[in-house]
């Protein structure tokens, strides 16, 4: 058991490229910390530095209070699960899991017992004498987990451990990882590019972009109170809708409707309340079909007409897509990053309008090609600085 502290940690490559810039992160004993971000954001580099597989260019890394910058990986007492699993192909499952203990010269009886315990947890008993080549993807993944568990290390490091599994198995393994971590209560650092994994697994989530830590907090903190445009757009699925807006006299002029801002939002905006051109962000669930909004909450929002060009039925909810006549927001670098992460394309209607997505209750009668009344919760609006991407509505 140990806490992990990254103190101004920097990774600089010989060509001058900084993969990780002054990273400060404190991971408490027993905590499940997620490092999340698009590819190339430095999350894996950060993990490898904690593991000792990459040198730290500057700053200090402490595990359990001891500075370990120059300590070899084998002496850090941490176990790692690799994205590729990295199982030893010439060893059986049992030998794979026992390898670390054998190296540590643990008595044979104890090794067997520990391997047995791990195999019980991971349901690997009938595969112990098989070689990795004869296992399915999910089984290999469990062996990789088992190899980490048997050692009873002071921390687990996991580098996208589920990304090679198919979608269904990934969801299953996700809950298994969460249960195992809760049961063993071992400090865990988990790297992923999947925001769903980040939201569902982590005690806390650290969002990174271009080597810079954007925000750290519990999943719900990040979701409700993002520090900037990138975090807001990255966390949540479907992602937050962004559109150009103008703030003046306590009113937000959105492309589809003018919204008088509630007192709380104005207070948070503070000196930015007349900031002029900004970017507004609305989560899909903060829209609702106007006919389904209860009278009690109707007053805290505003209703406008929307023309749906696509309605996706998900069973428990509808995703209704509608266009707004807005100029494209080009200035924001963070929006560009989000777009790249989503595959580099932005959704547009046939007439070239920007598309917003509303998450509606299944009671909604919204149909594609029809116009209907859409309600917007004005207390849930987010505003971001158009240049810096900083959240103007950030609650400190």
């Amino acid at each position, binding site marked *: 058991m140990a806490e992990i502290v990254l103190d101004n940690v920097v990774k600089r490559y010989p060509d001058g490229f900084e993969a990780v810039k002054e990273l400060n992160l404190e991971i408490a004993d027993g905590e499940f910390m997620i490092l999340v971000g698009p590819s190339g954001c430095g999350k894996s580099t950060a993990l490898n530095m904690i*593991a*000792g*597989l990459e040198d730290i260019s500057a700053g200090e890394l402490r595990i359990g209070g001891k500075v370990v910058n120059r300590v*070899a*990986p*084998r002496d850090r007492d*941490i*176990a*790692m699960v*690799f*994205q*590729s*699993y*990295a*199982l*030893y*192909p*010439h060893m059986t499952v049992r030998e794979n899991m026992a*390898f*670390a203990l054998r*190296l*540590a010269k643990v008595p044979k009886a104890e090794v067997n017992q520990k391997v047995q315990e791990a195999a019980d947890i991971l349901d690997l008993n009938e595969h112990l004498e098989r*070689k*990795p*080549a*004869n*296992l*399915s*993807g999910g089984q*290999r993944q469990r062996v990789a987990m088992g*190899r980490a568990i048997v*050692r009873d290390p002071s921390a687990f490091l996991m580098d996208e451990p589920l990304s*090679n599994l198919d979608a269904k198995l990934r969801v299953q393994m996700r809950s298994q990882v969460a249960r195992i971590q809760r049961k063993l209560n071992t400090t865990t650092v988990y790297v992923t590019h999947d925001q769903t994994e980040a939201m569902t697994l982590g005690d806390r989530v650290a969002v990174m972009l271009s080597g810079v830590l954007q925000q750290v907090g519990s999943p719900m903190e990040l979701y409700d109170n993002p520090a900037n445009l990138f975090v807001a757009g990255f966390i949540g699925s479907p992602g937050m809708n962004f559109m150009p807006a103008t703030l003046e006299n306590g009113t937000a002029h959105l492309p589809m409707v003018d919204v008088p801002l509630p007192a709380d939002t104005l207070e948070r905006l503070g000196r930015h309340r007349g900031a002029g051109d900004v970017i507004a962000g609305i989560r899909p669930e903060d829209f609702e079909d106007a006919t389904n909004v209860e009278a009690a909450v109707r007053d805290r929002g505003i209703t406008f007409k929307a023309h749906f060009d696509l309605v996706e039925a998900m069973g428990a909810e509808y995703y209704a897509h509608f266009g707004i006549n807005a100029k494209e927001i080009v200035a924001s670098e963070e929006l560009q990053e989000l777009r790249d992460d989503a595959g580099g394309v932005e959704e547009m209607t046939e007439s070239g309008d920007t598309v917003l997505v509303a998450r509606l209750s299944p009671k909604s009668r919204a149909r594609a090609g029809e116009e209907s009344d859409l309600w917007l919760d004005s207390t849930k609006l987010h505003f971001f600085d158009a240049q810096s991407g900083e959240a103007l509505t950030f609650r400190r």
Partner: protein
Amino acid sequence: MDQENTPTRKTLWIFAVVGVLIYALVPVIWIASLSLKTPESIGDGSFLPTHWTLHNYTTAFKTGFFTASLRNSIGIALITTVIALAFASMAAYAITRLDFPGKTAILAGALAVTMFPAISIVGGLYNVWRNIGLFDTWAGLILPYLSFSLPLSIYILSAFFREIPWDLEKAAQMDGATPLQAFWRVILPLAVPGVFTAGILTFIAAWNDFLFANVLTATNSARTAPVALSYFTGASQFQQPAGAIAAGAVIVTVPILIMVLIFQRRIVSGLTAGAVKG
């Protein structure tokens, strides 16, 4: 493209295979046949012996110098192979895994060494070896064999090491292995096919060498079998020792055959299958 196994295609294949087999095997059978003929019938021109005898084999072993040369050959080739594999595996590992200045220069240098014509250094070596006492010793042959077989072994092994996922080594490090343990217990077992390939080639090269062995040895203490064959004499100086030479040639071929047959089973590819995802 038409990939069907039409009768014509099959027939053509059979002809081609039989042709290659005849081309490759007839000389070998011819030598074996010669070695079993009596001295009187050796020039009779018939493909198979008319009078069978093992006399040539007993002749080959009678003098003792052929037996000594066999011992030399086996010893020198085995020692060369073991040393070459030990150094080549470490060098190849360093070249594939580490980034150090002059890496390409080392590889280029190694390649240049293999292309170096042996005949151009053998004269110089003869004089040097005589002066420093390596002439007519096992070490005197092992050293030049090593310098010619190491580069090739390094090339073969580094190709195999490159195929092994780096993650495996990282995993071993995380599991508490020292670099040497990671190399010895994880990387090397996976490179076994490469090790055997390099080993066989090194052994064959050392076993077959005639040039160095002929120039750098003089007596039974280091003379190898191929050279010993050339020193066979008949019962009188007017008699051709062709039968005994043929018998010797067959005997010299046997260890190589055994080596290849044993190791061929070990050269199994796909050993790394299942290491990473799937």
